[in-house]
């Protein structure tokens, strides 16, 4: 089973997925700044290269060449560990995403998915619940009271919204009857998207995804008017870059998960009636999947520059008193409908 072809195929797939994720996250920063400029009637970055297209590279180089300063009273090991964990946890979720159906290469069928776990949805949920450690460790190791305060905010926010997210996922698995992401995607073939079956569940999931990625209406962990710079107050150089970058990777990954779970993944209408070869259909499917992902990422950016930040008590009330009962209601209704 573990032959050479299998190992090489998986190695190529892992490197490709990692590279694509990082490049997309890099260019999301550019898209964010350009769109923000558009919403605010500005020009946006336009100095580095044509239309400022090299701006993310310039930002990355600036992060690299700045001094990665570690404060004297900080815990040095944990201070470096924090951003690393954030980055690892952000990238880990890509391992179970089905990017496309399969390619036929030299008579072998190569699935475009790194690992088809039969507990894929649970794996995703586990990875999401690990994201909080990067912030907690970094914020505590900084030995700064503002960083610690925002760490506490961040972790209580993430724990609170994980609950509603988990219950929304339970309703989804009830209606699909499987925990494997590949099966969930292939069940949505022919326009039977889960978002039609689980509209309330999707709304709960996307709100929780905003909270889990610390995006705008819920970006209290880095609320600059109250907490200096949030949990990464003391960070500089590429360590700060990792924290900021992890946010964009998380945004990409959660858009990917939503596109796969609720919007049919790589399925598109008239998939099999085009009369094209298998490989071409697969590549078209990958393109359609990425189009869905980019649409959801645009939605993330759009919300950020439209809606103001919540107050902390409003955030907690929304999480515990609105989203959680709604998610439980959604789960119960789904269960009753399946039973009938």
């Amino acid at each position, binding site marked *: 089973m*573990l032959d050479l072809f299998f190992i090489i195929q998986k190695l190529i797939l892992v490197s490709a997925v990692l590279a694509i994720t990082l490049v997309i996250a890099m260019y999301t920063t550019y898209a964010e700044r350009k769109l923000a400029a558009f919403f605010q009637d500005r020009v946006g970055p336009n100095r580095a290269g044509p239309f400022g297209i090299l701006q993310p590279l310039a930002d990355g180089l600036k992060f690299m060449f700045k001094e990665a300063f570690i404060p004297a009273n900080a815990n040095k090991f*944990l201070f470096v560990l924090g951003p690393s964990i954030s980055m690892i946890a952000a990238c880990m979720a890509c391992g179970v995403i089905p990017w496309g159906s399969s390619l036929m290469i030299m008579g072998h069928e190569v699935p475009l998915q790194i690992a088809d776990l039969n507990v894929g949805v*649970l*794996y995703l949920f586990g990875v999401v619940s*690990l994201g*909080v450690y990067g912030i907690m460790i970094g914020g505590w190791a900084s030995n700064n009271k503002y960083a610690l305060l925002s*760490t*506490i905010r961040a972790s209580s926010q993430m724990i609170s919204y*994980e609950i509603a997210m988990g219950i929304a996922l339970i309703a989804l698995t009830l209606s699909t009857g499987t925990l494997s992401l590949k099966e969930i995607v292939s069940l949505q073939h022919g326009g039977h998207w889960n978002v039609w079956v689980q509209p309330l569940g999707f709304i709960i999931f996307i709100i929780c995804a905003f909270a889990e990625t610390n995006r705008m209406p819920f970006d209290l962990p880095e609320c600059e008017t109250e907490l200096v710079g949030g949990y990464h107050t003391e960070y500089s150089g590429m360590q700060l870059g990792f924290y900021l970058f992890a946010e964009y990777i998380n945004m990409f990954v959660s858009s990917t998960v939503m596109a796969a779970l609720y919007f049919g993944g790589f399925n598109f209408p008239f998939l099999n009636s085009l009369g094209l070869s298998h490989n071409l259909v697969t590549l078209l499917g990958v393109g359609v999947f990425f189009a869905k992902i980019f649409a959801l990422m645009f939605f993330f950016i759009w919300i950020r520059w439209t809606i103001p930040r919540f107050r902390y008590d409003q955030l907690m009330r929304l999480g515990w008193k609105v989203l959680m009962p709604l998610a439980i209601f959604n789960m119960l209704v789904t269960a009753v409908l399946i039973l009938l």
Partner: protein
Amino acid sequence: MILGLFCFLSLLTIMSALSVILSRNPVYSVLSLILCFFSIAGHYILLSAPFLAVVHIIVYAGAIMVLFLFVIMLMMRTSDVGLTSWVKRIGSFFVVGVLGVTIVALMQRGTLVLPRYLASVEGSVSSLGRVLFGQYAIPFELSTILFLSAVVGVVMLGKKS
């Protein structure tokens, strides 16, 4: 290959578990415990129980240890670290002694054997669900009542203060 993985994971488990009790800084203890849970989850995967592994990570590493870290980060003062009371020392010697005797007794009876590694079992989640909600439905429901009473207790305690 599997034997190598098993040895690596076992070494990691034991080292991290030792580091939990030997490190002076409680935050390091919590982080080592998280590492220990991860290596135990690796053992579950080797035993072809991916569901158990993932649930183990979600419940312990994802929820309980976050609360541990929370409490320690808020409460810790670096001055009062370390065991000083004699009662604690004698108590820990007693616990370790009992555990050691138990392990030796188990080994002499020959019940401590290396588990067999199965090939991947298809649909392990659904079969687990059938067993849990069919054969063991009553114990399962009883344990949910236990959890419910814990939730109610927490709400009551929170209201009092």
